[in-house]
């Protein structure tokens, strides 16, 4: 799993690539919490994530809570069908703002 952080002005975009699972989610969590610490709205682009397990989703939840405590929001973009199933099962689709694409998420943040 790799990640890249892109500053698009109105928000930071965290782009993950690869699987986010029990082995890689600690690194994803660190990246998310570090990005939250920069004090901008966060967009997590999951377009290149093939699989995300519940440890990855838990990391997203923790980052969302941390962002909101700082008065910012965290939204998800390009969530895969499998990841969306996990989010829906845990009723998290109503907790996260979810956008079809990164562009749509950036537009909403701006």
């Amino acid at each position, binding site marked *: 799993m790799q990640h890249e952080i892109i500053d698009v002005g109105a928000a930071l975009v965290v782009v993950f690539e690869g699987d986010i699972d*029990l082995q890689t989610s600690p690194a994803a969590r660190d990246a998310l919490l570090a990005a939250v610490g920069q004090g901008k709205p966060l967009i997590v682009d999951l377009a290149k994530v093939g699989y995300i397990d*519940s440890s990855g989703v*838990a990391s997203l*939840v*923790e980052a969302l809570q941390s962002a909101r405590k700082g008065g910012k929001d965290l939204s998800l973009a390009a969530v895969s069908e499998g990841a969306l*199933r996990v989010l829906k099962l845990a009723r998290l689709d109503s907790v996260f703002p979810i956008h079809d694409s990164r562009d749509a998420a950036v537009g909403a943040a701006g």
Partner: protein
Amino acid sequence: MSEIGQPATTGDPPSKNVIEVRDLVTHYGERMILKGVSMDVRADEIMVIMGGSGSGKSTLLRHLMALEHHTSGSMRILGHDIDELSGVELVELRQKLGVAFQGGALFSSMTVGENVMLPLFEHTALDRKTMEIMVRMKLQVVELGGFENLMPSELSGGMIKRAAFARAIVMDPKILFCDEPSAGLDPVVASQLDDLILLLRDALGMTVCVVTHELDSAFKIADRITVLDRGEILFIGTPDELRASGNQRIQNLLNRVAEDDDMDAETYLNRLTGDGPAYRPL
């Protein structure tokens, strides 16, 4: 942590079977329990294993969970020949298997949340906060959201089973095994548990293996049913195919007819007295 290697490939298209059992023979002492069992479990299906008492279904389930050694035959689980795995690799394989035990098997001295978190503590190095969120998510999935601080003694029978399911799925297993999930539950609660098994398969894409003697449950959830009889496979097929079977033993199972014990008098006497090579002093 080391990773078990990728399954060996032959150039053939990937198998859609997550478990392949071939000619499996197993003994308890000198007593043969499974007598050359061959079966497959396909990805994303719910396979129900049925059979009367002593048919070997619980033994088969333990083999499918890679918990038992067999006498002969072979088993592949998630593409791995379990005879070729080291002890460490077997442990890693078992982390991809979730088990909901018959009685729930929750630790009475731990809260529901601590019970569900236990596999994460044992097998991962995740941050405590991540684990706590995962536990609450899984409790929400089994409709026990907010119950994490209760003790098992404060739960009903159905809730204990649900908590056991939460623990079984907390690590997102590829295959979920359930041993008599409906045992001891009233029909309404048992039916709700069936719905939960269907939800886990449909929403999370888990393959599920269920041992049950509850016919209603089997017909409700099974994609396919395996019937074991005296250590041998009697039938593998869909619920409709099972209903249509003309096999008398299957019809006896479906109609809950007790079969005549075909043991002769002398064998019965030997069993009672423990006489003969098959028996040991108690």
